[in-house]
């Protein structure tokens, strides 16, 4: 697949901020500047094109917006929306942070889960939310993902997942770390039941999410130009004192190194996912 050379997209997590500005703030602005082609693109045009710039740059997308793009009509039924993190370790500032982020993002947690149809194919669907603490995984995200894979195994459904995450949520300490093991075990059970899991990695997918369910799918796809990696690029630079190679940790780089199956443009995602789901319905042994 021919791809454009992207400039390094701004990784707001690595810049030290924990939340990107909510998309709603853009509502009053007529244009958005593209970090790739540097042109000001009318917002209405971006929205009509699923937040892809005419130059091909894929802007980040809110979870609900992505669900509207991927799921058929009104087919999405949300599950486990009641699960949300408290402040189990009484981590300083976390409670206020959660309140602020909940108000700004309109979401209770950093992942939205449910059942849906994609091109007529039934599946479980999860979409992570970059506008909620950069999709970080705490107890609630771990519990929701785990519950979804268990639900999918019970109902013999495939899982389609869109990842975006800065990694484990440090404010929940060890509880966050353990969600990596918990979700992985649930993915394994679903997989051992012979069921399909398709992951689409979006910008950025890093840390503990990369090192767990993002990399555990049967088929791993990614959006063009998405940052996909384990350690943060800045940390690697500081640790190794070496210049990073061009395109380091971009989905094209990860594809070249053999860790994802393909890069798929946003415009092609629904059709491709539907086709992949359909193909996996058939078995030689019935």
């Amino acid at each position, binding site marked *: 697949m021919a791809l454009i050379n992207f400039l390094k997209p701004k990784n707001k997590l690595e810049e030290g901020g924990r939340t990107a500005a909510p998309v709603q703030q853009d509502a009053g602005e007529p244009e958005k500047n593209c970090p790739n082609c540097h042109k000001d693109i009318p917002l209405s045009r971006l929205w009509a094109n699923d937040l892809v710039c005419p130059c091909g740059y894929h802007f980040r997308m809110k979870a609900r917006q992505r669900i509207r793009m991927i799921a058929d009509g009104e087919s999405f039924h949300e599950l486990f929306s009641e699960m949300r*993190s408290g402040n189990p370790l009484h981590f300083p500032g976390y409670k206020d942070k959660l309140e602020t982020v909940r108000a700004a993002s309109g979401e209770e947690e950093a992942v939205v889960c449910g059942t849906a149809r994609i091109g007529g194919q039934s599946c479980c669907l999860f979409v992570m939310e970059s506008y909620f603490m950069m999709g970080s995984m705490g107890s609630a995200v771990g519990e929701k993902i785990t519950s979804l894979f268990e639900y999918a195994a019970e109902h013999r459904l495939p899982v389609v997942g869109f990842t975006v995450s800065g990694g484990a949520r440090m404010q929940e300490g060890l509880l966050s770390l353990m969600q990596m093991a918990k979700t992985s075990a649930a993915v394994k059970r679903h997989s051992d039941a012979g069921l399909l899991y398709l992951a689409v990695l979006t910008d950025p997918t890093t840390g503990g999410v990369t090192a767990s369910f993002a990399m*555990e799918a049967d088929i791993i796809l990614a959006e063009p130009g998405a940052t996909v990696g384990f350690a943060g690029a800045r940390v690697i630079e500081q640790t190794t004192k070496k210049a990073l190679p061009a395109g380091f940790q971009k989905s094209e780089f990860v594809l070249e190194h053999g860790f994802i199956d393909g890069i798929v443009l946003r415009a092609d995602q629904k059709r491709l996912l539907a086709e992949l789901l359909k193909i996996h319905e058939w078995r030689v042994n019935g």
Partner: protein
Amino acid sequence: MSGVPYDRVKLARESSRPTGLDYIRNIFKGFFEFHGDRCYADDPAIVGGIARLNGMPVTVIAIEKGHTAKERTYRNFGAPHPEGYRKALRLMKQAEKFGRPVVCFIDTSGAYCGIGAEERGQGQAIAENLMEMSTLCVPVISILIGEGGSGGALALGVADRVWMLQNAVYSVISPEGCASILWKDPAKAEAAAASLKLTAEDAKSLGVIERILSEKDLGQKEFYDRIRVLLSEELRVLSGDPDLIGKRYDRFRRIGTKELL
């Protein structure tokens, strides 16, 4: 026992503490080291092989930091590359094939942050270990002996029993990393260490570990003898369990569940 959690972090990092190989040599007999991941390389930061525990064959795997400057450089300061995790998984699968229990010793500041590590799929290697360890059909006991740094430690920690040395630490991120991300100030590591709840007592109260191992006579014969007895007893219990995998699933399944709103 030290007062503030950050003192524990410093203790856990002491180069004089027993390292993975010290535990292997003093607890087990006849250690035979196996090298390589059969894909790319042999990672000196992870040591593994077979040995006997009171006569019982076991597979032992340890993250090794080394003691001297030369050793520590050779061991990459106990920061494994993907090939280290793949070697560990290979040896665990081998243990499964031959019906041997697995004992892991964990001591790392974290999986190595480097260009090569990313190019060779550090995240994928850890993820695969988490997945495969969850259904390994032989008993697994993991012991945190020093630093338990994030996913790089957990990659050997999906076990039936997880134990921690009294002054070991287990954390989602280093206190320095946490302080620099959240408060833009690595000097606030001491506050971060307290907030992260990374001590053995914290881990036990969060249901992340089953047992805290005393550091009385640390590094002495009595110390290793005690651990040998505990391991033998626990492996005997686990070996007779017909629902090992189910219980291992539940062990991790409940973590963080009751803390939700």
